[in-house]
């Protein structure tokens, strides 16, 4: 069953810099779509002969199978002219689109999956942080998430305690704000835009808006691909493939408050494409 609530949300379907006039076939929520890029008339997305709404933002083309009741979210912090905007490129993952987002919201795996980069086994503790569902904007937010990191960013020289904020503005998108080593008063922005192909297959489009005068764009892309591909081998080996929304299926702890809020928010909105509702 397709969860109809998710049809009205926006999803990334391609890099604006890499759209083809001849069209590229792909899937969205299990339905075949074709993504076209035309030099004069701009991009276009079709589903079974029907034209879908399109939106260009954050270096990506976005579309929706339904009728979105609001514009795609914004990331005002990313607008600063000094930032380097980085299209990281697509990676396909054989997992639920919701599992991909949940993994992105988690810091407790850093010492084991991103060892000696985003975490160290000697510093695994996740201290208390704040999580809320902000009803005015209808987004999940986690703030004051602090974690010790041996190499927090390409621009980080050595180990630092990094502060994170996480935000879920759409069912398959997450934005994280983290301590920016070269500019202590600003936040680096790293986003994970997930295109749900089927309930257990997704295309992930990471995107970044960073302050980094030292590294080349290629180095920044490599760093983010390195991190994300370390996650991929985890995401493809979780059982069940779909994200369980039945609390009896998995065992969260205090460190998982963001994930708990995300799952609750998904359930509240009936965002269940890629979810497993009852223990199977």
């Amino acid at each position, binding site marked *: 069953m397709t969860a109809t609530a998710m049809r009205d949300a926006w999803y990334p379907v391609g890099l604006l810099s890499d759209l083809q006039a001849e069209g590229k076939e792909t899937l969205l929520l299990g339905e075949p779509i074709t993504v076209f890029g035309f030099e004069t008339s701009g991009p276009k997305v079709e589903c079974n002969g029907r034209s879908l709404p399109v939106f260009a933002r954050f270096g990506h083309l976005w579309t929706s199978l339904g009728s979105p009741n609001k514009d795609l979210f914004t990331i005002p912090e990313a607008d600063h002219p000094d930032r380097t905007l980085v299209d990281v*490129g697509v990676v396909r993952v054989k997992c639920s689109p919701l599992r991909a987002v949940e993994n992105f919201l988690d810091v407790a795996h850093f010492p084991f999956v991103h*060892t000696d980069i985003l975490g160290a086994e000697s510093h*695994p503790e996740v201290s208390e942080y704040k999580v809320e569902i902000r009803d005015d904007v209808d987004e999940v937010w986690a703030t004051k998430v602090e974690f010790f990191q041996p190499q927090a960013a390409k621009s980080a020289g050595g180990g630092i305690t990094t502060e994170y904020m996480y935000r879920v503005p759409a069912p398959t998108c997450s934005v994280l704000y983290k301590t920016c080593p070269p500019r202590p008063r600003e936040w680096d922005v790293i986003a994970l835009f997930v295109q749900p192909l089927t309930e257990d297959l997704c295309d992930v489009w990471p995107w970044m808006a960073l302050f980094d005068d030292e590294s*080349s764009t290629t180095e920044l892309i*490599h760093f983010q*691909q390195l991190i994300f591909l*370390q996650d*991929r*081998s985890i995401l493809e080996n979780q059982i069940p493939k779909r994200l369980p929304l039945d609390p009896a299926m998995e065992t969260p702890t205090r460190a998982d408050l963001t994930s708990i809020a995300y799952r609750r928010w998904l359930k509240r909105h009936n965002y269940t494409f890629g979810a497993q509702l009852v223990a199977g």
Partner: protein
Amino acid sequence: MKLYDYVLSPSCYKVRLLGSLLDVPLELLPVDFHPGREHKMPELLALNPAGSIPILVDEHLVLTESAAILAYLAAHHGPNWLAVNDPAAIGQQQQWLAFSHRLTRALGGARLVEMLHFDGDLATLQVDGVTALRELEAALFAKRLHGSTFIAGDTPTIADIACFPYVALAPDGSISLDPYPSIRIWMRAIRALPGFIEMPGIHRLHELAPDPFTEASK
């Protein structure tokens, strides 16, 4: 020595890995392979008309085949990793170096289709990949009966390094490694070598590091 490198390329990783195992400093020059396709741009094509990476540049020497780069690094810095005098050992090493190209084509091909949207006949690549893995498993099983873990000879050689990355990353192309116990033991032996480094998708052996909780209670 300069290495034109891509963090997700198993062939580039072969060179980084042997460099680390032999303690050879490599200056890494990152290439925007995906999504930028920089390896197909004029500057890199001038260096390597095949349009592939890795590319190793050591003063006037340019090498663009990973097996050749491994042989070059070993000849300079790790003679034990290279078969030179024994004809049978030379033959075996060449056999498995050539075999590694089958792994690249089949397992690597499936990986590019499944992970990075490349074109290819996935089912055929997977069948060829399984055939190659079975051949490797049978060979490593025979080696185990002889009391050795590595693919050519009794100690690790460049043949092991040439075969290891694409095998370890087979699941990226939706090819399971579960049915291959001798491959598992062999991969573990490589991951346990002093100086081993990871690449994304190949995790380190956490158990080799001291247990932080036992350490803390001491």
